[in-house]
């Protein structure tokens, strides 16, 4: 067994860490989240030049041939920097669907654009009535000659506002909650009948309600097999959960370290707060939550990389644990910062908000714990 990073992986981590240190402080981030698109195209270009957008894709597709471990390394650093660029939506979510299930033509057409930074994409899986259930889909796709006609609404679609392509999960057969009968379509953002209602999310990122009214897509826009889209959805969800977990681990590290630093300098009752045992123990617990979350994120990521049969169950355990630990670490970081923790001025508040959003994405603690014990 060897749990250390390779030399390339250490370089990757250092390169992301350095970029964030030099380009990404909280006031810079606040400017980006207040801008129209919610992130910086300039940063995205840099991500492409640094090769980060190519990392998970196969060399034959023009990528670097990295594994989920490399994505974990990047996401952990993104989590520390509270990065707002649409890496999760474009590279992890849409990128996974296209690279793992796309035809040669689709991979050629789309991955090159993702890798060079010219194409943004997202994956529209959720619907209002589904409440975390991935197979609960009512958006319909009806075949009509060479075309499919799509109708329905997809909810909280990350970065849809800036995406050039939206990958839409629709029902081609089966009842509303059936695993069988889902199909994934590549829909052009400019397609007739596609309408967006966009809004910020509480972490400053962007999402949209995507309404499809008689949107026509060609038959060759199907990713993977017709009616077997659940395989795509599961794969995308698992990769996204691994990425979010790594991001959360990075954010939690900053939170417990910021809290230690703050309580060391904050004086009350003629002592630094860090002298009080109850606070020492609380910070010790925050540290332990972070350590356990790190462990399970690593384990699940390595199982996914190997294609182990235990992967799915471990990912359920992971998303449960991440939800529990981020809530504890986030809430206590705010609590131990006192009134300062409630201000938008300190980054603590921004980590807390980001972690709150992460619990709501791809199934919360209850959802995954229920499936873990099933």
């Amino acid at each position: 067994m060897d749990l250390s990073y390779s030399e390339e992986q250490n370089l990757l981590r250092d390169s992301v860490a350095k970029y964030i240190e030099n380009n990404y402080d909280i006031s810079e981030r606040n400017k980006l989240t207040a801008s129209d698109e919610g992130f910086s195209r300039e940063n995205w270009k840099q991500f492409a030049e640094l090769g980060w957008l190519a990392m998970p894709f196969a060399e034959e597709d023009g990528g670097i041939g990295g594994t989920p471990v490399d994505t974990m390394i990047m996401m952990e650093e993104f989590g520390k920097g509270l990065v707002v660029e649409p890496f999760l939506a474009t590279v992890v979510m849409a990128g996974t669907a296209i690279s793992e299930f796309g035809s040669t033509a689709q991979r050629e057409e789309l991955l090159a654009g993702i890798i060079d930074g010219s194409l943004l994409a997202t994956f529209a899986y959720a619907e209002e009535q589904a409440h975390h259930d991935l197979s609960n889909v009512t958006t319909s796709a009806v075949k009509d000659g060479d075309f499919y006609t799509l109708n329905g609404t997809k909810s909280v679609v990350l970065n849809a506002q800036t995406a050039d392509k939206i990958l839409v999960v629709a029902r081609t057969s089966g009842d509303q909650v059936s695993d069988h009968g889902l199909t994934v379509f590549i829909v052009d953002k400019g397609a007739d009948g596609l309408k967006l209602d966009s809004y910020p999310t509480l972490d400053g990122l962007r999402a949209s309600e995507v309404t499809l009214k008689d949107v026509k897509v060609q038959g060759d826009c199907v990713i993977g097999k017709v009616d077997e889209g659940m395989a795509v959805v599961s794969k995308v969800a698992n990769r996204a959960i691994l990425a979010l977990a790594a991001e959360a681990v990075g954010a939690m590290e900053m939170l417990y370290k910021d809290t230690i630093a703050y309580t060391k300098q904050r004086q009350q009752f003629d002592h630094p707060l860090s002298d009080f045992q109850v606070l020492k123990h609380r910070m010790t617990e925050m540290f332990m939550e972070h350590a356990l979350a790190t462990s399970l994120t690593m384990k699940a990521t390595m199982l996914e990389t190997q294609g182990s049969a235990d992967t799915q169950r471990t990912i359920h355990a992971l998303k449960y644990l991440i939800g529990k630990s981020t809530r504890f670490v986030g809430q206590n970081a705010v609590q131990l910062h006192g009134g300062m923790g409630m201000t938008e001025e300190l980054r603590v508040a921004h980590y807390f908000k980001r972690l709150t959003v992460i619990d709501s994405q791809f199934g919360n603690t209850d959802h995954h714990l229920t499936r873990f014990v099933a």
Partner: protein
Amino acid sequence: MDIEFSKEDLEFQQEVQEFIKENLPRGAELWTKRGEWFEALRNKGGWDVSRWPVEFGGPGFTPTQRYIFDLEMAKNSTPPQMPFGVTMLAPILMGYGTKEQQDRFLPGIRDGSVNWCQGYSEPGAGSDLANLKTKAELTEDGQHYVVNGQKIWTTLAHIANWMFCLTRTSSDGPKQEGITFLLIPMDDPGIEVRPIITLGGSHTVNEVYLTDVKVPVENRIGEEGKGWTYAKGLLAHERTGLAGIQNSVLALEKAKENAASIKVGDGTLMDVPAFRNKVGALEAELLALEFTELRTLASVAAGGSPGPESSILKLKGTEIQQRLQELNIEAAGIFGAVWGNGTAGPKFARGATGAYLGGRATTIYGGASEVQKDVISKNVLGLGS
């Protein structure tokens, strides 16, 4: 032991219920006609200032009547009053102010024409409030104090006409001594209010900078150096009021409704065991906390002190509020992430997210939970200093 209220108290409860039924504006009028509501309360015999004694125009409720009154008002979500004047400053004016001060300030507090804010916390004085440093120096002629310093977390300072303020007039001896209670007009040119934007982007708290603010000595409450004693009684009171138990009872019912509106499988979120058990646990704890409040009341009604149970009301009360807020964002599912003017998802989701973020403050202000536990372990359990 008797778990029922007395016949007289039950009659009083009915009277309050009938009053609310007849006078409380409904729907949108709750806001537009709130002036008439307060007028009706006032005409009812000083019910607008339910905590005030008869000699100051209040109803002079017994402890049990006061409990019943608060309970019925909370159950019906009646319009709240700004607490700083009516509930927080008025008792201090009544207890320690001169007749002139009472005549000057109580009418404006009562009719809401004068807004007050509380100048207690400072950058170096949060949990350790007695550590405050804002300095008040008497001028040579003995007619004024000159105040210099900074207050922080000052709620609604930006709309306040006056601030009641703890200042330091002496640094000799223990820090609880040498604190003086002053009333300061906010339109003084030496006062600068700067907003603090809190989690979720709202502006309710501020920093207040005081530079050479001249305060006439007649604006001092009680004796110089005794301000801590006056303020301390009030803090204990503030803490019990923050438990918000009846609000939580209402919030629990609302959380159940919210969850029941979310479809999961063939049923709703309320049918999901993991979620339902959390609701049930909260309901059981709320039952216990409600009765703990009643035990405190019974002790006071019998002429005793509030008793050690009262210390846990704020601690457990705020913890329960926060857990209820968590239930709502969980029920909102993916829409718990939506912010701003988004209309996506169930209606309750918008308010739920803001309430969850803002609610984190309740275990910090009015004495952080960690400090409350210190108070209980020291004063109730006798566990050292």
